[in-house]
């Protein structure tokens, strides 16, 4: 018996080891050499991939980039299907009729260009006006292509910026003189960045930073260009592919959400329980103290862009707080949404943290200087990333280049996330004071906004369709362009729901998409497919219904149901059909439609359930606690508490 258990554990550890071949910091040359074997292992390991169609349009060879990118994406849970342009046909593939690419219907287009594709460099005798002309010409070559993509394919675009050339004709003045190539590329890059700032769904892949970080002389080894038409050396391709995979996974909503931090020798030097808070190494007095200060500053900035910070430490709680209150520390106790300082195994704490935050283990990154703790967490809390963070002076680089929290768009929600979760905790504390749950809900003074999709929320709505796994009836993933298309199509009813209360604003937390049609459509939905939109019908089919777990048990689903009914009646529709497609993660909503008053009409062999709701003459609203769209639906008496 005991031996069996050991065997199981070693199996887990072994499996995790395999995965770690692809975790930063990785050995790129091993990955290049063993890619076939690694791919096989990744495909055996899991089956719940998110499938995405990715078009790679290259200005240089892309074969090995695709080969290695596939590994990193599989490791991130994305199974890519690739379209690869013929050699250096990136521009032609977009600009001229391309039935192959249209038929491929990409979910994302990656434009792999480099300074080898720059054709309009100035000559030394060119005037300032001529240089400006060349710059516009070169920029427009790209801009027309991006616009064509936006018009034709409506999908996210990732575009390389330009890395520096490997030689400098003007030496140290290459960036100074009007005609210098570095100056030209800097200006061109700035134009790319401006386009990215002004266009949603358009993201820069920072080749410039990547090549500098790798080492430009090695990166740009001309052998690889002249022999094989690669824009960078072979050995740099894993670093390239990893960096790119981080942008792709972020676009598809698979970023991590929270850092789980150890304290002793992770956030400061020394052991607070043994050494006393006054003797910790943090602050400007010693070199090591400076290292920890810089790291705390880095984490504080992460918090400001929406990464949630939590503590998981083997310490007496009071000692942990005393350490965090060190006057030289940048991070203070209030910067953390959860502080677990106790003598429980760290894996139990981390499971508890995931539960309290209502997020999955694979949204967490565990940072601990102790390799044994990292190993236990990997084995006992599968899905958590526990990077090999090295020594204190390496912590920032490993976390940063790890790309766990890759920024695509900085939404207001991201910046406010820590606040929102803190507000959640306030709510839980308050909840304990109420005997009656309904009374508690009333005391929250909740204000809901439930309306058809609106332009300002399209990005957040798309993000939710990609991030929500648990409270998600059909788990359909959509890009922002898809969401915009639903909103514009008369054949659909779209609703988003926002929820605020006296502790704070949760932002957009629920999304419903329904399609008007007929009873015959059920046959198509039964197969998990979607019929084409029609302009009219007498049945509303609910193609998507999801809610963020941050507002579970707040009756927001009832408020959404009321609005669905209202929208249906507005269209003269009396019958609503709901569908539940089971996944590994959405068991919590298996009986959701029953709770909403639907009756189950069918259950297929695959576990799909189909539900019907006929709106009664005297439909009475299910939500009694949230005031929706400024109307006082909530019980006024409850408010005085």
């Amino acid at each position, binding site marked *: 018996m005991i031996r069996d258990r050991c065997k199981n554990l070693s199996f887990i550890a072994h499996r995790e080891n395999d995965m770690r071949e692809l975790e930063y910091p990785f050995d790129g040359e091993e990955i290049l050499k063993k890619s076939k074997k690694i791919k096989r292992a990744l495909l055996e390991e899991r089956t719940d991939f998110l499938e995405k169609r990715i078009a790679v349009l290259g200005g240089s060879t892309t*074969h090995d980039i695709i080969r290695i990118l596939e590994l990193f994406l599989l490791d991130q849970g994305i199974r890519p299907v690739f379209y690869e342009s013929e050699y250096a046909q990136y521009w032609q593939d977009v600009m001229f009729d391309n039935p192959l690419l249209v038929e491929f219907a990409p979910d994302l287009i990656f434009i792999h260009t480099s300074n080898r594709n720059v054709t309009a460099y100035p000559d030394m005798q060119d005037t300032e006006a001529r240089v400006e002309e060349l710059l516009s010409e070169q920029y427009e070559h790209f801009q027309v292509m991006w616009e064509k993509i936006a018009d034709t394919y409506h999908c996210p675009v990732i575009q390389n910026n330009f890395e520096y050339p490997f030689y400098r004709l003007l030496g140290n003045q290459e960036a100074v003189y009007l005609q210098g190539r570095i100056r030209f590329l800097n200006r061109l890059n700035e134009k790319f960045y401006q386009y990215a700032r002004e266009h949603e769904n358009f993201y820069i892949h920072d080749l410039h930073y990547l090549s500098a970080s790798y080492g430009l002389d090695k990166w740009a080894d001309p*052998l690889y260009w002249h022999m094989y038409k690669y824009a960078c050396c072979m050995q740099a391709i894993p670093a390239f592919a990893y960096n790119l995979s981080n942008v792709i996974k972020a676009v598809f909503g698979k970023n991590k959400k929270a850092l789980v931090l150890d304290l002793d020798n992770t956030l400061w030097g020394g052991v607070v329980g043994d050494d006393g808070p006054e003797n910790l190494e943090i602050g400007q007095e010693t070199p090591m103290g400076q290292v920890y200060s810089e790291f705390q500053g880095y984490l504080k900035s992460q918090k400001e862009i929406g990464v949630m910070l939590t503590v998981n430490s083997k310490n007496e709680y009071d000692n942990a707080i005393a350490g965090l209150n060190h006057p030289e520390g940048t991070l203070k106790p209030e910067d953390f949404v959860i502080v677990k300082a106790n003598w429980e195994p760290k894996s139990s704490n981390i499971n508890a943290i995931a539960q309290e935050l209502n997020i999955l283990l694979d949204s967490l990154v565990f940072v601990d200087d102790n390799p044994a703790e990292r190993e236990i967490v990997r084995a006992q809390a599968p899905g958590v990333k526990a990077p090999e963070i090295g020594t204190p002076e390496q912590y920032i680089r490993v976390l940063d280049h790890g790309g766990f929290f890759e920024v695509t768009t900085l939404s207001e929600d991201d910046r406010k996330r820590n606040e929102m979760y803190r507000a959640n905790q306030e709510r839980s504390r308050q909840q304990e004071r109420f005997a009656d749950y309904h009374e508690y809900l009333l005391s929250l003074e909740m204000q809901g906004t439930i309306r058809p999709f609106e332009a300002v929320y399209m990005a957040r709505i798309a993000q939710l369709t990609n991030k929500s796994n648990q409270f998600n009836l059909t788990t359909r993933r959509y890009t922002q362009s898809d969401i915009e298309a639903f909103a514009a199509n008369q054949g659909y009813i779209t609703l988003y729901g926002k929820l605020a209360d006296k502790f704070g604003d949760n932002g957009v937390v629920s999304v419903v998409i329904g399609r008007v049609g007929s009873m015959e459509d059920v046959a198509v939905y039964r197969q998990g497919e979607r019929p084409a939109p029609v302009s009219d019908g007498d049945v509303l089919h609910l193609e998507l219904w999801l809610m963020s777990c941050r507002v579970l048990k707040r009756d927001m689903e009832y408020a959404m149901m009321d609005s669905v009914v209202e929208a249906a009646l507005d269209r003269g529709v009396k019958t609503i059909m709901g569908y539940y497609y089971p996944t590994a993660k959405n068991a919590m909503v298996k009986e959701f439609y029953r709770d909403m008053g639907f009756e189950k009409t069918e259950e297929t062999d695959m576990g799909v359930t189909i539900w019907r709701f006929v709106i009664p003459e005297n439909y009475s609203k299910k939500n009694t606690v949230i005031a929706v769209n400024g109307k006082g639906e909530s019980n006024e008496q409850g408010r005085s508490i």
Partner: protein
Amino acid sequence: MSREEVFEKLNEVFRDVFDDEEITVTDATTADDIEEWDSLEHINLLAAVEQEFGMKFNMGQVVSMKNVGEMADIILAQIG
């Protein structure tokens, strides 16, 4: 390193790159003898050989190399 040792290591590299434990290379082995060894895999193969022996092929060598025997000669000349 002896020529035999170089070939032993080359066998390992070839097996990793082509994911085939059966491969054994000789002096006369060329791309025609290994089905998956095309011009694209060739780049990956050279990078893996360079990594294994801690050396670099220059462009002239890459262009002129005719078979695995010549590859071994270059490796031996460089690593001594």
